[in-house]
C-alpha cells in the first residue's frame, strides 16, 4: 500500500515536471532557452508513455504471455535463433535501428524553428513509432520471426506482400542516394574530412583481416584496434590538411567524390562481407554508441542555450534548405526519430529470433524506439544551439543564397538571422575547414553543433578535431548503411529476377551478383549524381522523397498490424495502430500531392521541370546550366512519377487491408491468422533473464 502510494506520487511528479518542461519549451518566446528543458521534457514523456501506454498495450491489447515459448526457445539452433538476455537484445536492436536518419532529419527540419520538430519527435514517437515497432515485433515473434513482407502476404494477401517488397526496395535506393549525398557534401573541398573518411576503408579491411585470419572471431580485440586507428586517422587528416602537395590529393568538388562513392558502393557490394562490411559495422556501432553517450553527457553537463526561435518565418514554405510549408513537410522531413517504417523490417528480422521471453517486447520494441527518438532530440539540440545565421549559412545551398560569401550573408541577414563573413570565416578556421558555406545535408552543421558542445565541455583547443571526429563518425555509419543497403537491395533484386530466370536468383552465382549489384548501384548512383549536379542542392529533392517513402513503409506495417488486430477480434483496440496510420496517410498523401501538383518551383516536381524547360527553350540559362538542364528536367519528372507510385502503393495496401477487415467483420472467409500455436516455455534459467 505504502509502495503504491509512493509510486503514484512519483508518477504525478514526473507528469508535472514533464508538463512544466514542455510548457516552457512551447511557450518560451525569449532570446534563448536552456537545452536541459528539452532533455527533461523528453525523458518525462518517454517515461510516462512507457509506463502507462506501452504497459497497457502489452497487457490489454497484445495480451503478451510470459509463459509462452518464443521462437528463440522453440527453434534454438545456436546460430540465428538464440535465446538472449534482454539487455543484449535491446543493444542489438537499438544498434540496428539507429542510423544517420535521426541525426539528419531533425537538423534539416530545424529551419522551421525548434518547436515543430521537437513536438513531432516526442509525440510521433510515443503514439506512432514506438507502437509500430512494438506491435510489429510482437506479431513477428508470434510468427517465428517472419519478415514484414511475408506477414503482409500471409495476413492480407499477395497484393500486400508485393507492395511491401517493392516499397522496401525503392526506399533503400532513395535512402542510399540521399545518405551518399550527405557524405559528399561533408567531404567536398575538405582534405581533412576526405582523407579521414578514405582512411576508414583500409582500417576496416585491416580489422576484417585481423578477425578473419590473425585472431578469428576476436571481435573486441579487432574493434579496439580499429577504434584506435580511426582516432589516429582523424588526427592524421589534420596533418594532411596542412601539407601542401598532399592536401590537393584529397581536395575535390562534389562530382568526383560522388563517382568515388558510387565506385566504392559497387566494390563493397561484391567484396566478401568479412573484409569490409562486417568490420566496418563493428567500428561504426561502437562509434555510434560512444558518441551518442558522449553527446548526452556533454549536453547535460554544459546545458547549452538554444538560439533558434521556436518558429521561423519559413513555416510559410519559403525555407532555404527545402521548400514546403510546416504541414506536411515537418512530418515528412523527420521520419526516423518519430516514426520510421524501416524499423518494421528490423523488428521483423533478427530481433524476434533472439527474444527469450515475450515480456521483453515492451522494453525492446517500445523502449528501443523511445531511445532513438531521444537521439533525434539531441540532434535537434545540436542544430539549434548554433546561431541561426550560422545554421542557415551552413545549410542553405548556393542556388538559393548565392555562390559568393558576401551575397550569402547579406541574404541570410536579410531574413533576420544576422551573420557576417568574418564570423563564418573564423568558424571555418576553428573547424579546420576552408569554408562552411552551402554544406547542405545536416552532417556539417550537426558536426559544428557537436564540436561546439564538446568543445565547451572538454576544451576549446580541440574544436577542429571534434568537428572532424563528428564528420568521421557520421560518415562511417552512413557508409555502413550504404554497403548493407546495397547488399540487401541486391538480394531482393536477385529474388525477383530469379522468378524470371532461375540462375539469376542464385546469390552465389558471380555473374548474377555482378549484374544485380550493378543495377542497384546504378539506381542509387543516378539519384546521387543528379543530387550533386543540382545547384539547388539535391537534398531539397531527395530528402522529401525519402521521408515520403519511409512513412509509407510505416503505413504498410501499421496496415498489417491493424489487419491482424481486427482478425484477432480486437476491433475495439484497433485504434492504437489506426490512429498513427490515419495520420501517416494524411501527411504522406498531402505531401505527395504538393510535390506533384504545386506550382511553386521549389516544391512541385512538375512545376520545376516545366519552369526549367521554359527557361531552357527561351535561352535564359547560362551555358553551364543549360548543359545540365535536360537531366534535371528528366529527373524532376521521374521524381513526380516515383512519388505517384509510392502513394498508389500506399492506397493499394490500405484498401486491401480494409477489404480484409470488412470481409472478416461480415463473416466472410479471409486469410487465416498465421500465428504459431501456444507452447509452454521451459526456460526459466537465470542466465537468460537479467
Amino acid at each position, binding site marked *: 500500500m505504502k509502495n503504491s502510494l509512493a509510486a503514484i506520487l512519483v508518477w504525478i511528479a514526473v507528469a508535472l515536471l514533464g508538463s512544466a518542461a514542455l510548457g516552457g519549451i512551447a511557450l518560451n518566446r525569449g532570446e534563448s532557452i536552456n537545452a536541459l528543458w528539452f532533455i527533461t521534457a523528453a525523458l518525462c514523456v518517454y517515461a510516462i508513455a512507457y509506463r502507462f501506454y506501452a504497459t497497457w498495450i502489452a497487457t490489454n491489447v497484445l495480451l503478451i504471455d510470459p509463459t509462452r515459448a518464443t521462437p528463440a526457445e522453440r527453434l*534454438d*539452433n*545456436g*546460430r*540465428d535463433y*538464440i535465446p*538472449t*538476455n534482454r*539487455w*543484449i537484445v535491446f*543493444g*542489438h536492436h537499438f544498434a*540496428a*535501428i*539507429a*542510423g*544517420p*536518419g535521426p541525426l539528419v532529419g531533425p537538423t534539416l527540419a530545424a529551419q522551421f524553428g525548434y518547436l515543430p520538430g521537437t513536438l513531432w519527435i516526442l509525440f510521433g514517437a510515443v503514439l506512432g513509432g514506438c507502437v509500430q515497432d512494438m506491435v510489429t515485433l510482437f506479431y513477428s515473434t508470434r510468427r517465428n520471426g517472419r519478415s514484414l513482407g511475408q506477414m503482409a502476404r500471409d495476413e492480407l494477401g499477395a497484393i500486400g506482400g508485393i507492395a511491401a517488397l517493392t516499397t522496401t526496395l525503392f526506399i533503400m535506393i532513395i*535512402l542510399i542516394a540521399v*545518405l551518399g549525398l550527405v557524405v559528399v557534401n561533408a567531404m567536398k573541398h575538405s582534405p581533412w574530412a576526405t582523407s579521414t573518411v578514405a582512411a576508414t576503408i583500409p582500417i576496416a579491411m585491416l580489422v576484417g583481416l585481423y*578477425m*578473419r585470419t590473425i585472431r*578469428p*572471431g*576476436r*571481435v*573486441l580485440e579487432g*574493434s579496439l584496434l580499429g577504434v584506435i586507428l580511426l582516432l589516429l586517422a582523424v588526427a592524421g587528416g589534420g596533418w594532411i590538411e596542412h601539407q601542401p602537395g598532399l592536401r590537393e590529393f584529397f581536395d575535390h568538388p562534389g562530382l568526383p567524390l560522388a563517382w568515388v562513392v558510387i565506385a566504392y558502393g559497387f566494390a563493397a557490394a561484391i567484396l566478401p*562481407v*568479412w573484409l569490409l*562490411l*562486417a568490420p566496418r*559495422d*563493428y567500428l561504426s556501432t561502437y562509434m555510434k554508441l560512444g558518441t551518442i553517450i558522449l553527446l548526452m553527457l556533454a549536453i547535460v553537463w554544459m546545458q547549452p542555450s538554444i538560439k533558434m526561435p521556436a518558429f521561423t518565418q519559413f513555416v510559410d514554405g519559403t525555407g532555404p534548405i527545402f521548400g514546403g510549408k510546416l504541414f506536411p513537410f515537418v512530418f515528412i522531413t523527420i*521520419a*526516423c526519430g518519430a516514426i*520510421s517504417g*524501416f*524499423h518494421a*523490417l*528490423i523488428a521483423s*528480422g*533478427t530481433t524476434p529470433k533472439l527474444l527469450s521471453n515475450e515480456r521483453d517486447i515492451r522494453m525492446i520494441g517500445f523502449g528501443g524506439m523511445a531511445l532513438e527518438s531521444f537521439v533525434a532530440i539531441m540532434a535537434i539540440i545540436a542544430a539549434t544551439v548554433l546561431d541561426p545565421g550560422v545554421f542557415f549559412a551552413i545549410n542553405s545551398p548556393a542556388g538559393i543564397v548565392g555562390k559568393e560569401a558576401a551575397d550569402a550573408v547579406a541574404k541570410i541577414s536579410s531574413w533576420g538571422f544576422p551573420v557576417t563573413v568574418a564570423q563564418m570565416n573564423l568558424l571555418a578556421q576553428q573547424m579546420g575547414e576552408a569554408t562552411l558555406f552551402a554544406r547542405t545535408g545536416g552532417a556539417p552543421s550537426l558536426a559544428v553543433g557537436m564540436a561546439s558542445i564538446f568543445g565547451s565541455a572538454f576544451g576549446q583547443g580541440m574544436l577542429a578535431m571534434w568537428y572532424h571526429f563528428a564528420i568521421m563518425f557520421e560518415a562511417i*555509419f552512413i557508409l*555502413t*548503411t550504404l554497403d*548493407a*543497403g546495397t*547488399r*540487401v537491395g541486391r*538480394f531482393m533484386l536477385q529474388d525477383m529476377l530469379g522468378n524470371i530466370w532461375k540462375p539469376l536468383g542464385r*546469390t552465389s552465382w558471380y555473374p548474377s551478383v555482378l549484374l544485380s549489384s550493378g543495377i542497384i548501384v546504378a539506381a542509387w548512383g543516378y539519384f546521387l549524381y543528379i543530387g550533386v549536379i543540382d545547384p539547388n542542392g539535391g537534398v531539397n529533392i531527395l530528402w522529401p522523397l*525519402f521521408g515520403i517513402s*519511409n512513412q509509407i513503409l510505416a503505413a504498410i506495417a501499421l496496415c498489417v498490424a491493424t489487419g491482424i488486430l481486427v482478425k484477432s477480434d480486437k476491433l475495439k483496440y484497433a485504434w492504437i495502430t489506426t490512429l498513427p496510420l490515419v495520420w501517416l496517410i494524411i501527411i504522406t498523401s498531402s505531401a505527395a500531392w504538393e510535390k506533384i501538383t504545386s506550382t511553386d518551383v521549389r516544391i512541385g516536381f512538375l512545376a520545376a521541370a516545366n519552369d526549367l524547360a521554359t527557361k531552357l527553350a527561351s535561352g535564359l540559362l547560362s551555358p553551364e546550366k543549360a548543359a545540365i538542364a535536360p537531366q534535371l528536367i528528366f529527373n524532376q519528372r521521374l521524381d513526380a512519377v516515383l512519388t505517384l507510385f509510392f502513394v498508389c502503393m500506399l492506397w493499394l495496401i490500405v484498401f486491401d487491408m480494409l477489404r480484409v477487415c470488412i470481409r472478416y467483420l461480415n463473416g466472410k472467409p479471409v486469410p487465416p491468422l498465421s500465428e504459431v500455436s501456444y507452447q509452454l516455455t521451459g526456460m526459466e534459467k537465470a*542466465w537468460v533473464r537479467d
Partner: protein
Amino acid sequence: MGTGLTERSANESLSAVNDSSFPVFETAEDIDQYIAQSDTLRTNETCIEPLPLLSYIWRAIRELSGDDAYERYIAQHAANYPDTTPLARKDFFLYQQQQKWSGIQRCC
C-alpha cells in the same frame, strides 16, 4: 572445418564438458589439448555462480559485441547435438557473418 577434426575427437571433448565450461577450438590440436586439461579447467570453473559486477559488465560487453558467440555456440551445440561435430571457430565466424549480412541489419 577442414582442420582434420574427426567426429570421435569432438565427441570425446564434448562429453568431457557439460553446461558451463565452454571449450574453444581452433584446430584438432586444441581439442586434444583440451581433453588433456579438462580436469584442471573444471576445477577453475565459476561461471554459473552469481557474478561480481565487473565480470557481469565484461560478460555483457562480450555478448553484445559477439566476442563470445563461438563459446555460446559450442555450449549450445554440446547440449543439443552431441552426436555431430561443431564448426571450428574460424568457420563459425565466417558462417555467422555471412548469415548476418544476408538480411536487413541496418536501418536509416
